[in-house]
């Protein structure tokens, strides 16, 4: 089966650069991605140029790496305090998309690099995300390899582990994945649900159904619901929202997962999605059954 790239997002010819490749995380996931078949062409760690990590050449700067290898996509593992610099280095070297795995980046840094990315027409995924996978084509992320197979179900999620759980359930039910992406658990993220739908999914002919995994906090789910209503998005969408039992005012693991006052509750999100015609799953295990119903 030959799998194509995803328009406005993943090029057919993905050539991955790993920023922070010599670190523990960077090195481990480089190996995992290579095992999956990802075309990792270069790594960068300042001061470690000339080394190799799992056979991947390491450069001191992103510019050199891009010039030497034609890398077009970046995945970033550098520690939070260096992330701002690393993302901008990638932007100005022309990499696009840029996946920021790093957790713990201050929101002040994130809003700045997102704004500059936008001014340069560059897409950012994350921060604090598991990345993305297009089974059969590439994995630019940290998800475990074994739960993903090519197919036509796209999963967009604010979560990490829960996404793998759902992906696995989808697989066990006999479906495969077109694209699985974790948008990130941080308070401010590069590409949110609405943007994914409007800029990417509506153009992707290979997506037959979309599973959206939301959680408490913010209003990304509500805004997506509004978008679906307003644009008449015409592929079946299944929604699951985690945190129905979460108390207000407490940060539930993710920086963005917090109910403030009366806003950001799971119930409000579920209500909005339901009214927009989204098929609601109340348990992750409901998803395969719904998929069987909505995919003819």
């Amino acid at each position, binding site marked *: 089966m030959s799998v194509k790239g995803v328009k406005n997002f993943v090029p057919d010819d993905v050539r991955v650069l790993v920023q922070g490749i010599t670190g523990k995380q960077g090195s*481990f996931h480089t190996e*995992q991605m290579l095992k999956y078949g990802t075309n990792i062409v270069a790594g960068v760690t300042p001061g470690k140029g000339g080394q190799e990590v799992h056979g991947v050449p390491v450069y001191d700067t992103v510019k050199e790496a891009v010039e030497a290898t034609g890398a077009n996509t970046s995945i970033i593992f550098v520690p*939070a*305090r260096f992330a701002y610099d690393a993302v901008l280095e990638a932007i100005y070297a022309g990499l696009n998309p840029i996946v920021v795995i790093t957790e*713990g*980046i*201050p*929101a*002040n840094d994130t*809003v*700045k690099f*997102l*704004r500059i990315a936008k*001014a340069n027409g560059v897409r950012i995924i994350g921060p604090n995300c598991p990345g993305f996978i297009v089974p059969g084509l590439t994995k630019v992320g*940290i998800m*475990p390899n*074994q*739960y993903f197979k090519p197919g036509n179900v796209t999963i967009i*999620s*604010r*979560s*990490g*582990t*829960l996404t*793998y*759980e759902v992906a*696995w359930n989808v697989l066990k039910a006999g479906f495969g994945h077109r694209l699985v992406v974790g948008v990130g*658990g941080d*308070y*401010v993220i590069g590409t*949110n649900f609405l943007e994914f739908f409007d800029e990417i999914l509506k153009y992707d002919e290979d997506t037959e159904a979309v599973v959206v*995994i939301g*959680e408490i906090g*913010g*209003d*990304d789910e509500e*805004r997506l619901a509004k978008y679906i209503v307003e644009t008449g998005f015409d592929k079946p969408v299944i929604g*699951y929202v*985690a*945190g*129905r*039992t*979460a*108390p207000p*005012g*407490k*940060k*539930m*693991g*993710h*920086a*963005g*997962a917090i109910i403030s*006052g*009366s*806003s950001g509750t799971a119930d409000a999100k579920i209500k909005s999605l339901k009214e927009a015609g989204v098929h609601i799953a*109340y*348990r*992750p*295990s409901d998803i395969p059954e719904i998929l069987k119903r909505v995919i003819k």
Partner: protein
Amino acid sequence: MFLLEYEGKQLFRDGGVTVPNSFIIPRGSEASIPEGFSFPLVVKGQYLAGGRGKAGAVKIVKTEDEFREAVESIFNLKIRSSYPSHILVEEFVPHSKEMYLSILVSKPDKGYVILASKEGGVEVEELARKEGVLMKLYVDPITGLLPFHQRLVSKFLFGGMNKSFMKLLASLFKLVVEKDLLLAEINPLAVLEDGSVMALDSKVIVDDNSEFRHDLTKYYEYTSVLTEGEKLGKKYGFSYVPLEGDIGVMGNGAGLTMATLDLVAYYGGKPACFIDVGGGASEERIGTALDVMLREIRPKAIFVNIFAGITRCDDVARAIVSVVKKRGLDISKMVIRLTGTNEDIGEAILKEAGFKVHKDMDEAAKEVVKLCQ
């Protein structure tokens, strides 16, 4: 991290945002009025939860007796199961109007947003529901606050250029950027007779992710109100939120752990806590988290839900067995759901130690709920 009112006000004061003169009475110390303060005074309990005004934790006092009485009664006033850790006592500031001002890092806008209203003293959600009452102004992160932003907000609130306000707005914005605040809210913002402005309250959220570049610990006395478990969570890198039920829930990943709470509730159970041990959870982290759960929550049953990707099931199994042995736990009250990388080895280790092990999340949830009935 939320700051207590007086901590936020200290930050304001240091950043040039005017606040009333005040002093602090920590719980357990004597209630006396330092030199230089005169009646009337405002006595305010310091809680992390909202709603203290309605609960009676803010009192204006005019005499020494009223003052002592207010301090005593507020220290004994519980809001959402917590007593105030401190009382803030401020000079009463006569003012002609109360307004609303906040600056936040906005998730949908991916930048800064200033919210302002001529109506202060009510919640911002309430202001947002009324037409034309709340001004929302986006500030681009690549420019920061500019004079024209100051003019726009001043015009909206005052119908013209109020220099005292424009200065306060600039100072507040500087704090948001330089101290990495996710929210800096002043509600009410007092307008004095001479037109100058002053922050009568503070609601500040500091970005936890910014700790590596600031030492804001001098504003953080409130961490004394965190439980031992919350502090350990911060230290060892797991998220811990105590809840009110009887089933201790631990999972790996925030989304999965929330989904586990929801599933427990779906089958009629009541979660006693949320513990997310995160990815690649080490034995030490899992052990400490279980320790915290047992010590602070004493749940009737425990549900550990691990979907292993990068995490390895055998590591998790060994961590659980080790903690259980050390503390001599009743494993009949523990339900483990373990699946993913190295699941067979993990299952074998746990079964040998006498655990019930599930691969399916729903089955496991049903089982743990049954244990508590």
